[in-house]
């Protein structure tokens, strides 16, 4: 059974059709990417899942149950890190647990063993502004993971980083993901990132968004930190062509 199943989901906001017909499914332990041109409504799908918006057609089910607004099965990592500048890193990391009503001491005890893997050891008492961009993203990711939600929603998590840091972060993330196997839904417009990290990729059309392609990525892991395999390269080229067709340009 799918952890998440969206069927023919549509959404119109203020007379503008944002999502036309979105159908996708996500299995436990799977890494799924949603790839699409900028402004296609990729982030809007996350807004539906986190309860920030309501779809007006189609169905969304989680483990066979309809998605209720009060059901929070998702850990959400927003585009910019959204760390609270007035909270020390440790208090940012425990925010989700705090919201769940877990006592501060227990929340800290839960987060502390994860610090080393996320390269945040020794930085818990720092404020976000004292950290580099890469560290801030890792903190935001740990804040997401620490909530113990069954599905992780990552909204262009590396989009705001410089090219070098992004490459390092992607490699680091792949390594972490290979050990933890979080069930993940990634939104991105970076073809290479999608191919490097995903089991499967959905490609969205321009707004109003439809799913126009579903691509499996069978390439063996790890895929980063080594030359891109011929398979992966072919998939990248294929995805790029689909996307360029969408924007009306050709290579």
């Amino acid at each position, binding site marked *: 059974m799918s952890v998440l199943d969206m069927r023919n989901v549509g959404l119109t906001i203020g007379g503008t059709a944002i999502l036309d017909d979105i159908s996708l499914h996500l299995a436990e332990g799977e890494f799924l990417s949603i790839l699409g041109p900028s402004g296609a409504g990729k982030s809007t799908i996350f*807004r539906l899942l*986190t*309860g*920030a918006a309501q779809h007006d057609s189609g169905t969304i089910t989680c483990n066979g149950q309809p998605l209720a607004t*009060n059901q*929070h099965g*998702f*850990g*959400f990592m*927003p*585009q*910019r890190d*959204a760390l*609270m*500048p*007035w*909270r020390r890193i440790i208090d940012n990391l425990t*925010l*989700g647990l*705090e*919201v*769940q009503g877990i006592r501060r001491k227990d929340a800290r005890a839960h987060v502390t063993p994860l610090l080393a893997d996320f390269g945040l050891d020794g930085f818990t008492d*720092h*404020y976000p*502004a*004292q*950290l*580099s961009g890469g*560290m801030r993203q890792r903190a935001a990711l740990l804040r997401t993971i620490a*909530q113990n939600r069954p599905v992780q*929603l990552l909204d262009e998590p590396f989009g705001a980083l410089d090219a070098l840091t992004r490459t390092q972060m992607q490699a680091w993330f792949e390594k972490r993901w290979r050990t933890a196997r979080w069930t993940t839904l990634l939104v991105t417009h970076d073809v290479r990132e999608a191919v490097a990290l995903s089991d499967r990729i959905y490609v969205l059309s321009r707004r109003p968004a439809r799913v126009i392609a579903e691509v499996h990525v069978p390439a063996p892991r790890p895929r980063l930190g080594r030359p891109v395999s011929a398979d992966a390269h072919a998939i990248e080229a294929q995805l790029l062509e689909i996307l360029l067709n969408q924007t009306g340009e050709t290579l």
Partner: protein
Amino acid sequence: MQFDVPRRPGRGLTRGIPAVLSVVSAFLIWELYVRLSGISPLMLPAPSRVLDQIVLNRALLWDNTVPTLKATFAGFALSLTVAFGLSVVLDFMPRVRRALFPIFVVSQTLPLVAIAPLVVLWFGFDLTPKVLLVALVTFFPMLVALVDGYAATDPEIEDLMRSMGATRGQIFRSARFPSAMPYFFAGLRISITYAVVAAIFAEYVGARAGLGIVILNAKNSFRPDLVLAAVVISSALTLVLFAVTALLQRVVLRWRDVEGNR
């Protein structure tokens, strides 16, 4: 990446030097002018004479400073409570905000000269009218600062908290309220400079004691030196309150002083 880099030592002191110099030279010029021109102290007393008056009348000044301070603190406490309470209500109920905000704006257009005697007429010569006038003058900047501060919360932080399942109250406490703090302190600094002046004005219109009464009596007996002595005390009070606010801000907004934040 930078951590715990100490600020250049003595920067605060060095930065204060021009201010001290300008104030001292202004007083020096004033003193010199009075001495050289031979102007009557009934017209313009020299700063040294004003200082003498403060020392000579220290008992009188102290006895009258206490009621002014009481009115200032009580009025400011009332104002702070009302401003914060109202800001929360307005934040949770946008309709109430639209209904009430014009009233608050109008309250700030009332000339104090006209309102103060009326408030004294209605509430007598006791502490009450002074407290009310101080509150009336000081609450608006704080209310506006809080309401604007809540609205300036990063929407992504709110979306994030909502995705975590946070209630409206949790979002207010953990996101909107802390976001408003820098704004609040900006408003607080404006308010605090009005507070003492408002208390003195209220006393001036009708009171049994207070710096306002000292000023009124000194003026009526042609004693500009004593008027200025009371003015010095009043300014000093405001400066001290301002400094306390600045200190409080340093503590509460410590996170803004770390490297990376301005």
